[in-house]
């Protein structure tokens, strides 16, 4: 995959480049701010952009704004936003700007190389990768309002993984279930919550998120 990275912390940027190269990806450019990111994308047309949220010049949400802008201008480029904090509001902004081909992860997740590269691959394929932390927040909100009461504990685990953007196979893997059992849980969740059964993983994520959103 062709990848462009935008991250202002030089050490972390270098590490990220090495990690992705070791995994067999081509890092076409590694830049330090939002404006340079837009220019690099226009030049290299990467498959995936990995961007830090907080970058110069204002150190607020440059990366997020660049991501939204990129999804609009280059629909073929998936965007993974990294951050040291998780803000549910940021996730909502990202998803409402573009329901597919986006991801929002804590920087900590990079430490698990396989999970991280899996997320990159997923969004490059038009999927979604949401940090478990975001999902946890959303689930907590729904639990408070009683919306998740009909679900069993296992079904809640499945729902969380579904919201992160995982496929049935990914869910089965993570929970050490057979694929058939995972599919049964998913069908049961859709039925209990009154969600429309969706074919693609991405639409499934959106349905779940739509349900969870306060």
């Amino acid at each position, binding site marked *: 995959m062709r990848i462009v990275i935008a991250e202002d912390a030089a050490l972390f940027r270098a*590490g990220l480049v090495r990690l992705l190269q070791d995994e067999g990806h081509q890092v076409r450019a590694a830049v330090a701010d939002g404006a340079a990111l837009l220019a690099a994308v226009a030049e290299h047309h990467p498959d995936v952009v990995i961007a830090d949220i907080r970058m110069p010049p204002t150190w607020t949400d440059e990366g997020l704004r660049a991501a939204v802008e990129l999804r609009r201008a280059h629909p073929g480029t998936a965007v993974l936003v990294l951050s040291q904090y998780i803000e549910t509001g940021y996730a909502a902004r990202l998803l409402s700007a573009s329901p597919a081909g986006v991801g929002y992860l804590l920087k900590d997740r990079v430490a698990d190389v396989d999970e991280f590269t899996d997320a990159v691959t997923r969004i490059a394929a038009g999927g979604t990768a949401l940090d478990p932390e975001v999902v946890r927040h959303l689930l907590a909100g729904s639990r408070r309002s009683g919306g998740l009461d009909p679900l069993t504990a296992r079904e809640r685990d499945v729902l969380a993984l579904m919201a992160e953007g995982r496929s049935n196979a990914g869910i089965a893997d993570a929970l050490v279930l057979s694929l058939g059992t995972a599919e049964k849980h998913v069908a049961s969740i859709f039925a209990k919550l009154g969600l429309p059964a969706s074919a693609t993983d991405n639409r499934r994520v959106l349905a779940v998120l739509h349900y969870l959103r306060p």
Partner: protein
Amino acid sequence: MDAVSLVSPVLRGPFTGRARREVAFCVLTLPFGVFIPLAGFFATVDAGLLLGSGPPWVADGNPSGQAVGAAVGVAALLTVLLVTTGAARRLTAACRGLAGRLLGEQVTAPPPLASRGARGLAARIADGPGWRALAYLLLKFPVMLLECFAVAVLWGAGLANLTYPFWWLSFRNHSPGTRLSPVPVITPFDWIGQGHFTVATFPGTFAAFAAGAGMVLAAPWVTRMVVAADRRLIRGLLSPGPLARRLADLERTRALAVDDAATRLRRLERDLHDGAQIRLATLAMNLGMAKKKLGDSGAVPDADAARELVDTALQGARDALGELRELARGIHPPVLDNGLPDALASLAADSAIPARLACRLPDRPAPAIEAIAYFCAAELLANAAKHSAAATITIDVSQRAGLLVLTVTDDGRGGVDPGRGSGLAGLAQRAAVVDGRLDITSPPGGPTRVTAELPLHT
């Protein structure tokens, strides 16, 4: 001082803008001076007239007891009314405005009564600024008389005297032999029965001209003196009272303290985010990569790469620790727990420019004061190292009348501008929060001396 430089301000005095503005001030505020005597006079006399059919107002040609009592009562009522209706405040607000516009005497208005949630009669009677406004109106009367003297006699009559030679020949050109009464000339000394003189001939008008010139030259200085008295009254009586000023000070410094705290928290977050946090994230990433290189079990597929990544991770851990240590020290230096002298000694030892410390502090200040003094010294040392090109720095700490006095002197190039660069302004603000102050003297060419005075206890 030579004669020219002594005389020229005297000659120019009457023609300055300041002289004009002071005259305008005297004229425009005259009504405020006559207000109380006039109001008092009419109120007491009218009271007598209104109650005319009542008790005998005159006994043996003098006011009777009842008359005096009624007058005192009416005067007291008038006084209370002036304060409680806010009339005194409104009248003096005009004086304050004129003083600001014409004299450049900027006096803050006292806080309005209503804003303090006090609208009852009791609160209105207890309205300190209202009473002080009334006191101003009373004292304005004698001052106004002096101002009238300066304006009417020195300026008015002085200018009139100057004109005598010019109109004399056109109006006094009667045929010879006509007997004309002499024309009086007004002088400032008329009122003590001296100095009054008259002129009857044309050459005599030059005496009037000379008197006028003297009066006009003296006028601006006399006006300035009486206006100075008025300024004192305005500053003392028409400004917010000491409590209100204190309140305003506290409100200002509280806002500074709140801002300062918010700024520091924000900076702390930034430091953590850009420092230790990202270092730890990088460290985790390197360890994650190393783990991958080590494989799940058995033989290691890429031992060299794994070793290198672990080395990088180790270095990252050390850097993160160092960063966190610096950050923690910046929040509260542990050495400060042993007292200010120890903390300053280690600060002086670490200074880039050789620093000498003299610390005579018999009483231990409050921890907050120690912290402010410490960070003040640290900032000043850092500033000196950055900008002063000094060879030595002296840090002097002493105690004087319940104050901790910290003086940092360097022999550098000076020219420090407290307005530019927020470091010193920030220090001054932090000192102000605890009622302390910061003095900076830094002439171009040096030396720079910054003195912080802080109360020993908050």
